[in-house]
């Protein structure tokens, strides 16, 4: 045995830690992208709903982000950035692309939410002396949010899973970490099973939190 080289070793406890660290990477990437994407998306959705003149420009633009596969957007953006003389880490590039993608999805959902609050309710709010902004903030947005909340949660869970595509840029998140471990251990099913469990652990609290909110709002 002395002249054999060991290429493959089994799955060890330390590998679990490695995956947990990678899961933390996935969480950071997703949370940041969802936060930025939601803030941006609500702004864009407001423009779509309230400033109709922006539609001819915004709608095709958002459609590009929504319809070009994310993996292509990631590779293109990551390779385009150095061409204009900027350096971005895989994490930063992934955040930018995922945020834009999330914003494009959220924009249409936010638009639908705002439009779901009809003119009579807005007029009732305005008749009380509320300004446009006050009626938006205290009546239209909270009511619209309740309507489209499940759709938004769907986006959150989707972006969380889609963040795995950032692995193509070399960022070590959950999927990338699993691939590294699979190469070493040759135990694809087991490692993917563990990675899948980690994804579930990340998503499940979101679903649980969402369900609780919806229940509370139903009364």
């Amino acid at each position, binding site marked *: 045995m002395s002249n054999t080289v060991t290429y493959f070793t089994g799955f060890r406890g330390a590998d679990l830690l490695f995956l947990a660290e990678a899961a933390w990477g996935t969480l950071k990437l997703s949370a940041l992208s969802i936060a930025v994407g939601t803030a941006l998306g609500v702004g864009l959705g407001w423009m779509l709903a309230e400033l109709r003149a922006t539609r001819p420009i915004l709608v095709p633009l958002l459609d590009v982000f929504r319809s070009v596969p994310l993996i292509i957007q990631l590779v293109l953006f990551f390779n385009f950035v150095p061409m204009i003389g900027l350096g971005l880490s895989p994490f930063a590039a992934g955040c930018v692309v995922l945020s834009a993608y999330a914003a494009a999805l959220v924009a249409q959902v936010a638009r639908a939410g705002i439009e779901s609050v009809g003119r*009579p*309710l807005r*007029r*009732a*709010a*305005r*008749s*009380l*002396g*509320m*300004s446009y902004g*006050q009626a938006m903030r*205290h*009546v239209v947005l*909270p*009511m619209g949010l*309740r309507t489209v909340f499940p759709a938004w949660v769907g986006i959150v869970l989707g972006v969380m899973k889609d963040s795995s595509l950032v692995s193509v840029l070399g960022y070590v998140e959950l999927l990338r970490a699993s691939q590294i471990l699979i190469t070493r251990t040759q135990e694809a099913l087991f490692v993917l099973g563990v990675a899948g469990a980690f994804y579930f652990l990340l998503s499940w609290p979101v679903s649980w939190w969402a369900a609780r909110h919806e229940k509370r*709002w139903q*009364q």
Partner: protein
Amino acid sequence: MIQIENLHKKFGALEVLRGIDLAVNKGEVLSIIGASGSGKSTLLYCINGLEPISEGRVLVDGVDVHARGTDLNRLRQRLGMVFQQWNSFPHLTVLENVALAPRIVRGLPRAKAEEVARRQLEHVGLGDKLAQYPAALSGGQQQRLAIARALAMEPEYMLFDEATSALDPELVGEVLDTMRMLAAEGMTMICVTHEMGFAREVSDRVAFFHQGRIEEIGRPEEMFGKPRSPKLKRFLAKVL
């Protein structure tokens, strides 16, 4: 005092109001009757500036509602409005529905706003529903909630846009009773209504709208007792 001078309102080619002249004094209750589409509701929307006008003037306590520099948000605090669809805010409790505008528009601290809200809700008989959500209320209760919400801004005038038209018949009474109570308290009210009994009994004056004009206006006994215009006679024959 609300003064309306030569008011015209067009929606595209359709002229809904065709020259309205009307003055409503403080403390007066004016009912506006007439067929659907005669411009009654539009007039209310023009009074608080929710609809722009095409021609003429509307003055509320001397303030020109449609003048360029008018602060409509400020003006609307003096003009409470109750709609046909009660429009409660479904995401807020009954108490929050009423306390919201006093808090964010009048700038009252939360505790004070809720005190005002509680008082108004008790006034309209909803003192036991404070923590409920509007969905748990009947139509009549939601409409009384809408009245309390408007009153919480302590308006000088109340505009009622067919406040009972969307209600089941057995719920109309409680809302009309609330409106009667306000009238008895001396609130200045303009009520667009299909409730002829209410118009006759509560109003100081009744205006009959026909195709965007005031066809006849006068004291309720005259309007219902001996109407002059043939159009009013025909209208009354149909609805009474």
